[in-house]
């Protein structure tokens, strides 16, 4: 006898709000300036947006899918500066984009709970490749701006019921 296939459900609007709140909180805590989070939208047909640097967290447990943070070099250089970093190599930018992705996904557990199990980040440049997301639903893009820079958090999660 095979195990029953878990029912997959979409995230609720309140769950999406958690991710938007984590973006605002992150930038305020690290830089002292809030990010302006814009209206989230579903990504029906296009490929998920990528940027100069991308950090992807694979999610399993009670949720299945991925959380991906994509940002331009300039934004990440500012974050590195605010953290007191004195070198700004590609490796440093990849490191911080992965750390931000990890922090945004991890902080969502405050509301979504420990069932949102996350892996260490997979990071890549614009020329690189994302891992395939294990989610089957439609990805949700949360765009935001910080200073003059625009970036996105792509949340692609199924809720297993």
């Amino acid at each position, binding site marked *: 006898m095979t195990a029953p296939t878990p029912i997959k459900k979409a995230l609720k609007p309140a769950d999406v709000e958690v991710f938007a709140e984590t973006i605002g*909180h992150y930038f305020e*805590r690290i830089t002292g300036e809030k990010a302006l989070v814009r209206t989230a939208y579903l990504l029906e047909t296009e490929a998920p947006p990528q940027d100069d640097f991308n950090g992807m967290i694979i999610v399993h447990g009670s949720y299945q899918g991925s959380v991906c943070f994509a940002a331009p070099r300039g934004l990440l250089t500012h974050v*590195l500066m605010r953290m007191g970093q004195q070198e700004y190599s590609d490796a440093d930018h990849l*490191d*911080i984009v992965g750390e931000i992705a990890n922090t945004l996904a*991890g902080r969502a*557990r405050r509301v979504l709970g420990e069932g949102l199990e996350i892996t260490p980040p997979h990071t890549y440049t614009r020329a690189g490749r994302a891992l395939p997301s294990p989610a089957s639903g439609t990805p949700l893009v949360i765009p935001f701006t910080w200073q003059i820079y625009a970036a996105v958090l792509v949340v692609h999660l199924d809720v297993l019921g």
Partner: protein
Amino acid sequence: MTLKLLIVDDSTVIRNRIARLCQDMRLPCLEIVGLAGDGRQALALAEQFRPQLVTMDLTMPQMDGDECISRIVDRLPETRILVVSALSDKATALKAIKKGAQGFLRKPFSDEQLVESLLELIR
């Protein structure tokens, strides 16, 4: 008295930030004896240097922070561990404390929060 500190995080930027803050904020009682990017490295450095204090990330490759805390507590029960993690749910914090960590600091953290948490651990 100087206390030996081991910094464990899979992010080089975060490891450097913690190290720099310990120096810049003038915590003269701390001597950084090692920086580790995963649990296995951390365990090897802990056995080599026998630090009194450890800052410990949880989500890491090779060996995660949970397992690393258990092993350090087994081998060096006097070591005090401050978990510094993005995993913000209460259950994770409680689990880390049960395993033997003495403090839990959520990422993202401010400079002042880190220093305060380290001082709390030293007191």
